[in-house]
């Protein structure tokens, strides 16, 4: 192929490749220019929140901000004014409707003057439900809506569970291992609600309304346990995160393992997030002690992974850009707050100076806000989102620029003439000239032989010179034949190395090949 064409062929192939990659990026939708931001609306001093929720707990028609830490339970209105505040010792809280008025109430499990007690806060009015309970230091509390009736289930730091009726009467007790209860959630089996509970020792149990185990299992020490109906089939999935990185998804119905994986670091948080916008399934986002972040589908397929610089302390699913898909807003012990989109691309919000403890989203007043609690305060932010329209087509522009440059280079390289051959032969084709050249070559061959005999030239130099002269002699014979002049052929070619030899030789001087001609 002509050297004028080859650069263009190569350029064409490269351009096709570049444009194919550009098209792939442009039309797959992975290239976006999106920016998430937040502006703080108000803040209140509140250290190290353990539980936080935007919910209507005051019985009005507005949501409030409920927040609880290790010493206090408070409720703020939409503008940050304190509606309720009560100090407790070792409080653990849960939210649920305990008086059947259709409004959420607060249940506090704490250490009171008369031992471990349970308070209820209904529309901002505190009342003690029960006292002197036979249970240890509060670890978890949950209102479980068992089919026969709602129960308040308390969990302590020794793995004990105690169930109370809504009027405070003990119903049953159960022991899940011997260490702190690390997860207590309602789990559906065939649509009916059961209790899933797990302790730090690794023991896990699903119990019915009478405190009888449907199934139990144990694994490595646990940090987190949550139950979600990820695929909406009426049977929940129980997700556990281990102290040494084991992530399990169990079927709540029978305890069978649906999926397990080792993440290589302790699992510090697990949450469900609607990452893909498909309401028939929920995705889970897992955070690690060393900052790892993973997103999994409901069947356990890993969707993406990322990382923060420190232990993930909170994960929350928030649809910031209003596209029907939730973004995972993730807080870390370093104070970082990052937003991971459904594809795993990351945007950072302003970093806090103390560890992030809780993140939630909700409507306070007429606006939706992102509420972030850190080691010192709780901040209410207005989240913002902006994107550059049409940015997804920039790969095509870049591809066209690169392709144009490739084409220009090909054109320039084609315009440069080929470097001339530096071994040239100036040969007159007349018979006299060819005969004279032949004589000269034979004289030169005789000269080389003479030099060899005299010892002036030996070895490779002799052979190299002889080879070149013989080749010139063969060229001379070829020129004779081409011009139609009679010539007595005196050379042959070695079939092995291609070197020119004198006719009649029985062994190639250059490669040692035996010749049978």
């Amino acid at each position, binding site marked *: 192929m002509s050297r004028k064409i080859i650069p263009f062929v190569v350029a064409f192939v490269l351009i096709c490749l570049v444009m194919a990659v550009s098209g792939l990026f442009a039309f797959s939708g992975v290239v976006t*220019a999106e920016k998430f931001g937040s502006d703080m609306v108000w803040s209140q001093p509140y250290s190290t929140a353990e539980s936080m929720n935007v919910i209507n707990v005051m019985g009005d028609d507005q949501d409030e901000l409920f927040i609880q830490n290790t010493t206090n339970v408070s409720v703020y209105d939409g503008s940050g004014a304190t509606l309720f505040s009560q100090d407790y010792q070792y409080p653990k809280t849960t939210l649920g409707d305990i008086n059947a008025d259709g409004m959420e109430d607060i249940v506090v499990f704490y250490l009171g003057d008369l031992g471990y007690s349970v308070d209820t806060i209904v529309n901002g009015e505190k009342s003690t439900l029960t006292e002197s309970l036979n249970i240890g230091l509060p670890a978890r509390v949950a209102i479980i809506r068992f089919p026969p009736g709602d129960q308040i289930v308390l969990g302590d730091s020794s793995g004990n569970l105690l169930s109370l009726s809504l009027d405070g009467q003990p119903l049953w007790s159960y022991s899940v291992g011997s260490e702190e209860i690390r997860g207590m959630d309602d789990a559906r089996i065939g649509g009916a609600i059961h209790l899933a509970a797990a302790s730090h020792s690794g023991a896990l149990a699903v119990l019915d309304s009478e405190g009888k185990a449907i199934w139990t299992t144990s694994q490595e020490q646990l940090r987190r346990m949550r139950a979600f109906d990820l695929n909406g089939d009426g049977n929940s999935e129980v997700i556990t995160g281990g102290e040494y990185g084991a992530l399990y998804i169990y079927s709540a119905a029978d305890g069978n393992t649906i999926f397990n994986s080792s993440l290589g670091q302790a699992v510090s948080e697990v949450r469900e997030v609607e990452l893909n916008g498909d309401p028939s399934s929920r995705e889970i986002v897992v955070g690690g002690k060393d900052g790892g972040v993973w997103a999994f589908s409901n069947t356990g397929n890993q969707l993406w992974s990322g990382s923060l*610089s420190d232990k993930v302390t909170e994960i929350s699913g928030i649809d910031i850009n209003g596209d029907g898909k939730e973004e995972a807003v993730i807080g870390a012990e370093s104070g970082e707050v990052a937003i991971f989109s459904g594809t795993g691309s990351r*945007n950072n919000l302003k970093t806090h100076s103390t560890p992030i403890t809780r993140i939630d989203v909700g409507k306070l007043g007429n606006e939706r806000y992102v509420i972030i609690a850190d080691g010192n305060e709780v901040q209410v932010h207005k989240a913002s989102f902006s994107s550059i329209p049409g940015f997804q087509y920039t*790969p095509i522009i870049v591809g066209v620029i690169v392709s144009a440059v490739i084409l220009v280079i090909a054109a320039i390289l084609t315009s*440069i003439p080929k470097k001339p051959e530096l071994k*040239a032969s100036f040969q007159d084709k007349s018979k006299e000239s060819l005969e004279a050249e032949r004589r*000269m070559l034979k004289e030169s061959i005789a000269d080389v032989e003479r030099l060899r005999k005299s010892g002036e*030239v030996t070895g490779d130099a002799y052979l190299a*010179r002889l080879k070149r002269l013989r080749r010139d002699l063969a060229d001379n014979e070829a020129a004779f034949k081409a011009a139609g002049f009679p010539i007595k052929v005196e050379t042959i070619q070695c079939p092995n190395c291609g070197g020119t030899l004198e006719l009649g030789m029985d062994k190639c001087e250059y490669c040692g090949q035996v010749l049978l001609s």
Partner: protein
Amino acid sequence: METFLCAGVALLVVALILFFYLLNTARKKVTPSTNIASKKDLLPVYLSLADKPESIIQGMEKLKANVQKTETAGDKWRWVPLIIFFGGVGLILIDLVFDVLGYFSLIFTAGGIALWIAAIVMARSLRKSDSQDFPPRYNGTKKILHTLRDDLRPGSTFLGHLDLTGSLLPTKVARTAKDSQDRTTEYFRDEWLALKAKLYDGNILRISAIQKSKKRKSYWKRSRISGKMKMKPEKYKGSEQDLKVRIVVNPELYKIESSSPTFKQGLNVGKFTISQLSTDGGIINFVANSPFEEVEHENILSILQSAYALLKRKAAT
């Protein structure tokens, strides 16, 4: 953040290296590379001569012009790779602007890197069009042929070769020798010019210009002080020029004088000293040596002219 900073620093280092590489390509080379004999590397040319003088001279000029044309064509686009490089920098800066505005984008950076790769490919291709200088012997030989062209028998041709591929090629090792310390010395014999011509006066002239060089090969030696084995590099030990001339004299026109005060053994003619001279059998054979590494064409022509002092034209009958 640290990851991005590291990637940014790495990209900056790559950009700097690439910039200086392309700048070096864009500039015309001022200092040519040198070989073991500390001589600059020259264009390796081999010409087979079997044609009339005008054709050979024209062919030699054309070859030189073609090499020059390729080089000039390459020179014209020398700065283009650097321009493409800056185009790539521009694309990367667009991403930087997006990042400053709070958007994350790498697509322009990818395009920029693609342009950098294209710039490297183009720079390397342009380098291929660069040529070393033609050896001085190329022009010298052309002048010899030009001078002798009118002395050639009408219709006849020059025969021989001009081999300027290098005097220290492995194929030009004539012999090797070892000294008492087991060091190998290579003796090179480079017959760079062989020329045969039938002259107008009926004489036949054969010229053979040979450069003889010596090079000691590299070897390992144990240090007397530290006891460590050290490799001594190969060493160029110098070279000299031999000029072998044979004139078969036309007996009808000339009578050979056995000696001449202007041409005798031991006489210096230009850079050459005549070391052997024989006029037996109607043939003048002489060898002239020169300790110089380079002999100019004037020296070769003047010794040929001097050799004619041995010839005495016979009186016309």
